[in-house]
């Protein structure tokens, strides 16, 4: 099988937010460069994980892909179409093929809607199906995520956390999407429930060949679910590689530090600790040159002046660092 055309392509995407003062005579004080020139693509049926700490721009990236934000520069292509210029029926079509599952199923599901209405919403808005078809589709989707079709008449508060996340997944799946953005899909759930939801998502991907963009900070979750991982730091992708390759051979000092900070799965695993000094600097005036240089244990004078370019170290293994 030839590699399928990517479902999602992100090209040199930038999103800068203005920091302003005053209401009438608005003065721009600076720019928050939340996302600053990132590129990646996701093939059909695969998962790309974006990892990084808070403030690195992962959520802004997700919002740009969902067209909840307009980019400052660059573009997002879904099935080859630039989503930020879509109008009319094409826009409606895009809204059905790109869906999202959010972190917290307590706040992402409307407490006033019955499960069947929550799940059916994407296909009702689309307006293509009759009410009989919608009903059948909802029942089928609920079964697919491990709920009973009879539960469609209940309200979200009647379910536990894991079941609620199943409802959220059903609502994302009902319109037969090609791409689902998973924003921390298991971190609000209990430990014993997490595996249920992760396995469900993996199974659904195998059956339906849907692509995922997984936003996560928990590295073990990433390793279990993703085919490819992109590590973000202050609005930039500093390293991107196939999951196996990245976990075997992390190159960027930030990736190494992130991995070394992860908690071990067994008391006998002792990692070489790379302790980073300080915290992530403010994205308002990010450091010059390589953004990581003030915290990097291997920083050289060059790092403060020159921004490192993306380099391919191995097929599909990109790193942006002057060390290589």
């Amino acid at each position, binding site marked *: 099988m030839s590699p399928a055309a990517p479902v999602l392509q992100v090209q040199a995407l930038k999103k800068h937010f203005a920091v302003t003062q005053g209401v009438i005579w608005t003065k721009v004080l600076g720019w928050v460069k939340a996302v600053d020139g990132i590129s990646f693509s996701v093939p059909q049926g695969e998962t790309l994980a974006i990892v990084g*700490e808070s403030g690195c721009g992962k959520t802004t990236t997700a919002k740009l892909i969902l067209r909840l934000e307009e980019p400052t520069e660059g573009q997002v292509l879904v099935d080859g179409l630039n989503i930020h210029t879509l109008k009319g029926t094409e826009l409606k079509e895009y809204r059905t093929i790109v869906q999202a599952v959010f972190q917290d199923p307590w706040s992402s599901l409307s407490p006033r809607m019955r499960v069947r209405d929550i799940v059916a919403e994407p296909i009702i808005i689309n307006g293509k199906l009759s009410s009989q078809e919608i009903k059948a589709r909802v029942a089928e989707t609920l079964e697919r995520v491990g709920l009973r079709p009879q539960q469609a008449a209940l309200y979200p508060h009647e379910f536990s956390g894991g079941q609620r996340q199943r409802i959220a997944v059903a609502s994302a799946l009902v319109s037969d999407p090609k791409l689902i953005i998973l924003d921390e899909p298991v971190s609000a759930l*209990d430990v014993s429930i997490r595996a*249920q939801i992760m396995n469900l998502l993996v199974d659904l991907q195998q059956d339906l060949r849907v692509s995922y963009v997984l936003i996560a900070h928990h590295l073990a979750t990433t*390793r*279990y679910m993703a085919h490819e991982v992109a590590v973000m730091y202050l609005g930039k992708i500093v390293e991107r590689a196939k999951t196996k390759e990245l976990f075997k051979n992390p190159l960027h000092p930030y990736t190494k530090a992130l991995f070394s900070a992860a908690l071990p*799965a*067994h*008391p006998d695993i002792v990692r070489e600790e790379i302790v980073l000094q300080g915290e*992530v600097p403010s994205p308002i005036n990010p450091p010059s040159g390589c953004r990581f240089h003030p915290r990097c244990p291997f920083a050289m004078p060059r790092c403060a002046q020159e921004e490192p370019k993306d380099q391919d170290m191995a097929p599909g293994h990109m790193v942006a660092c002057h060390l290589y």
Partner: protein
Amino acid sequence: MPRKIGEPILEVDDLHTYCFTRWGTVKAVDGMSFSLREGEALGIVGESGCGKTMTALSLLKLLPRPVARIIKGSIKLQGEDLVPKSEREMRSIRGRRISMILQDPQTSLNPVFTIGNQLIEAIQIHHDERRRSLVRRAIDGLKQVRVAAPERRVDDYPHQMSGGMKQRVVGAIAISCEPKVIIADEPTTSLDVTIQAQYLRLLREIQEATNLSLIFITHDFGIVAKMCDRVMVMYAGRVVESGPVRDIFNRPAHPYTQALLSSVPSMDEDVERLYSIAGQPPGLWDLPIGCRFAARCQFAEDRCRQQYPPAVTIGEGHTASCWIAKGT
């Protein structure tokens, strides 16, 4: 490791904490016994609603009144039982001898007072000194948790600090009166990975310097693996397994512990498929008479549903409450 594990400092025996609500009695802690030794780090692991936070609040006697009450059992801190103590007596014990680090620094610090004032508030209870020397102590406290430029930082308000910095301040408040025991309730869940690593390292260093006893309350086996000497696994208000950390990781005896450990993905190796535990924990207001995990246990027999299993000794200091667990 220069840490010396000494004599038992905290001994909890048959602790029962129930909440009396409109909907019935919630058996949050239902017969818990353990001892914590000087310089030791103990992990209490469990899912939300298993009673781990109520255990912590019972130890400090900070239970929400009048709903929750300790109805049975004893909590001996250096041989002295805390259960019959009055609120007034507890005030001189809290902070000085036993202290707590809460989960979320955003909500456990007061936004309208400077962090210096909040530190002083804690120190003042135990040290009747003049303002100037209290400020000195507050600055020393910040220095101890490695807050940069503590002389300036004491006058900051919480919103001027980052999450990691705030959690350090919470830590400084907890250790300000040199307690013997600190209970850390999910101390790092709201922190980023690299900040979490910094914080855990700091706690370990403070523990080594002062031979403090720590209780980590967490749902994350990673924290246990990194920080703890011993671990207790809680399920639905009871301890189902306890023992030295390595024994629990290498030879978990209770099916719940086994299932939990194999349902967590690892970042150090590829896992083909995660084991997932079906169902969900029972409500603490409506507990089965037998083993509380029986409904989700793949090995459950009739006996498990009828009678609560006794604790079986698996190895030295390692026990599990399960009918099918075998001792050595």
